[in-house]
């Protein structure tokens, strides 16, 4: 990709590579530190923040209402029925978990691949992961008929002497998701410890000093500590990588292990993981673009990041496309009537519209346009695409779950699925919860890892080198 379509004397362009810089020129250790810490340490909360938090809070409250009613009445307030016994709850579960994955991918896999540009976005990507997992983890619990008995899924010694049944993918979920949540939180926290140190030292307010001080565990930047810290981070990254792959693989098992046409397929694990990353990066964009604008972080989250994420979208998008293609191909190649009918029904059955939405949002628009760097670096377009992909990926889960279930083996028991207002309230509610948590995060925690940004500044080079070449 040449520099032809770029303005030659744009300071944001690195003349050596013709790429956008990962960090705009002219930044120093102190400037970025003050920039990032400042966002948190300023005593005045921006009005925009307050307004948005109000909206998000309302959403979260709606979730609370919906779930309370659910516990009192039973899952029957949702649209779930025979034969479609899983609905929005599981769709949202898979969707949220998927979104989470991009965070881990950025913080772990890109770290292993030494992709310096991930540094400026990995912190809030991880935060996104954790909040997404919070939203996701809620669903398997509340979608059960008797949530108050969920502890039966844990291997604890009860007077019944009955134990969990480990052949069930749902049991695998329990362990996969809980592990994923724990490791993500730990990874996230450990990553923040040095920055907490900085916050402790930068804040003027006693309470803040005390709290950040506690959180920093008394970090003082000894190089010995730094070395162990680096090792631990690498190990965690090394562990999180197979973990993140396993988590969505396990979730795909919920379907792949079942015998239902449209579920029972070996392609699900890779195709789910790719899909997860696809939707995850879309969500990162959805968050990053407003953030950089609102907090004027253009210097740290540059077009370069947007561009790279666009490329990731393109790549994962094609893997997903391959998945869809393979499903169609196999439904013919397998010569299995079940598969053939499932595919016909999915595309042309009464719920064919959902498949159309999915193809439009996930394939048709993104995979054709993301080739153009101009569009990839057009902030507004990328925002639009990110929304589009999020929608598309939600519908992918809808298609997989609903359109496989509502017409399965026995034609006599075919049915249909019509979401109720409680379904929508619960879904929108989680969006609110997610946003609220995220807003709290950007207000009270450093949303960009300062220590890692410092490493990329020209000043960090020991050997005297003049160009502000950093990162890649």
């Amino acid at each position, binding site marked *: 990709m040449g520099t032809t379509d770029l303005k030659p004397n744009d300071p944001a362009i690195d003349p050596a590579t013709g790429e956008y810089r990962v960090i705009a020129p002219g930044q120093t250790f102190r400037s970025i530190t003050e920039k990032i810490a400042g966002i948190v340490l300023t005593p005045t909360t921006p009005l925009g923040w307050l307004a948005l938090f109000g909206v998000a809070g309302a959403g979260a409250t709606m979730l609370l209402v919906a779930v309370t009613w659910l516990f009192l009445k039973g899952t029957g307030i949702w649209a779930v029925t025979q034969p479609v016994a899983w609905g929005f709850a599981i769709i949202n579960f898979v969707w949220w978990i998927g979104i989470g994955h991009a965070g881990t991918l950025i913080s772990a896999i890109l770290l292993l691949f030494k992709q310096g540009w991930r540094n400026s976005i990995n912190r809030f990507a991880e935060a996104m992961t954790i909040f997404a997992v919070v939203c996701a983890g809620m669903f398997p619990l509340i979608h059960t008929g008797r949530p108050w008995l969920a502890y039966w899924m844990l291997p*604890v010694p009860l007077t019944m002497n009955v134990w969990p049944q480990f052949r069930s993918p749902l049991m695998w979920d329990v362990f996969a998701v809980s592990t994923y949540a724990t490791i993500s939180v730990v990874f996230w926290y450990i990553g923040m410890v040095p920055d907490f140190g900085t916050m402790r030292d930068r804040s003027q307010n006693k309470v803040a000093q005390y709290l950040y001080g506690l959180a920093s565990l008394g970090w003082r930047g000894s190089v010995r500590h730094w070395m162990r810290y680096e090792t631990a981070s690498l190990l965690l990254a090394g562990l999180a990588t197979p973990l993140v792959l396993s988590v969505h693989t396990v979730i795909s098992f919920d379907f792949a292990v079942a015998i239902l046409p449209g579920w029972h397929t070996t392609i699900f694990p890779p195709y789910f993981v790719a899909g997860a990353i696809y939707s995850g990066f879309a969500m990162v964009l959805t968050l990053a673009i407003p953030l950089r604008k609102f907090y004027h972080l253009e210097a740290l989250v540059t077009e370069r990041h947007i561009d790279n994420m666009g490329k990731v979208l393109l790549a994962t998008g094609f893997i997903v496309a391959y998945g869809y293609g393979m499903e169609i191909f196999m439904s013919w190649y397998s010569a299995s009537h079940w598969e053939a009918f499932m595919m016909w029904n999915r595309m042309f059955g009464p719920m064919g519209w959902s498949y159309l939405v999915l193809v439009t949002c996930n394939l048709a628009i993104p995979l054709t346009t993301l080739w153009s760097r101009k569009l990839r670096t057009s902030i507004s377009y990328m925002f639009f695409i990110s929304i589009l992909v999020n929608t598309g990926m939600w519908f992918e889960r809808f298609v997989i779950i609903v359109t496989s279930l509502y017409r399965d083996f026995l034609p006599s028991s075919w049915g249909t699925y019509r979401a109720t207002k409680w379904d929508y309230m619960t879904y929108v509610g989680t969006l609110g919860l997610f946003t609220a948590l995220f807003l709290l995060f950007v207000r009270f925690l450093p949303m960009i890892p300062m220590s890692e940004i410092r490493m990329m500044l020209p000043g960090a080079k020991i050997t005297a080198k003049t160009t502000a070449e950093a990162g890649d």
Partner: protein
Amino acid sequence: MAQIFDRSSNALARASLVLTGLIVIALGVTLDQLQRSPWVTRQGQRPDQPVPFSHKHHVQGLGLQCQYCHVTVEKSSYAGIPPTKTCINCHAQIWTNAQLLEPVRSSWATGESLAWTKVHDLPDFVYFSHEIHVNKGLGCASCHGRVDQMPLMYAENTLQMEWCLNCHRNPAKNLRPTGEIYNMAWEKPAEDRPVWCAAGDGKTGVPTAQSVSCTTKDPSGAGAEVASLELPLGGAHGQAGDVAAAALPVAPVYKRFTSQDELGHFLLDHYKIRTPQELTSCEVCHR
């Protein structure tokens, strides 16, 4: 810039970390104990009853048979709570104006039932059948304890699923000759307390109760009369009582047992007790 934290805070911080861990563990242990505690299971508790009925007095003192009151224990899943009439049978003559028995008399007069409080109270989704247990050589005392020594009734055991399974997984350790079902004082065989048992002629279709004949007296050379010792006391529980040896076509060959394990497995075979796998299957208790 000065210190934020005091010198002591290092020790405090580390201590609190350890403490948190300990608290979590302690909590787990507590819950685990709580679910088995009498507070939850009511084990050993004596609820208030309309009449402070003493099994000790009636069984040990007066020697009433269990079945005199619990009539359907061999015929039905439900052992049976005696109707007021059963009390009146005797108390029309004795203790006719004891204050304690006022509720019984008023029940008899008004026709209003006595409202006892359940002592052995299984959850409603558990289907327990007395008849099969009694007919397969499980004594009353095995589950209900020494009722004959209980002035006021209480639950000897937790009646929790793990307790049921404990026996269903290894019935042999609680089996006894059906003739001894109602024998509260029955103790497991031992060197100084041997039991002699003889299998029936082994033809199929013989009711469990008659498939084995047992005695606690040495039957050697005295089959018939020993057997007569084994005759059920009164016809009240003929089914569970062992058949007289004389009734068997050939004089039975008695085998001497000095341990519950041997006896248990002998009875396991001849009473045709189902396998642990079958006995621990869900539908045995839940429908």
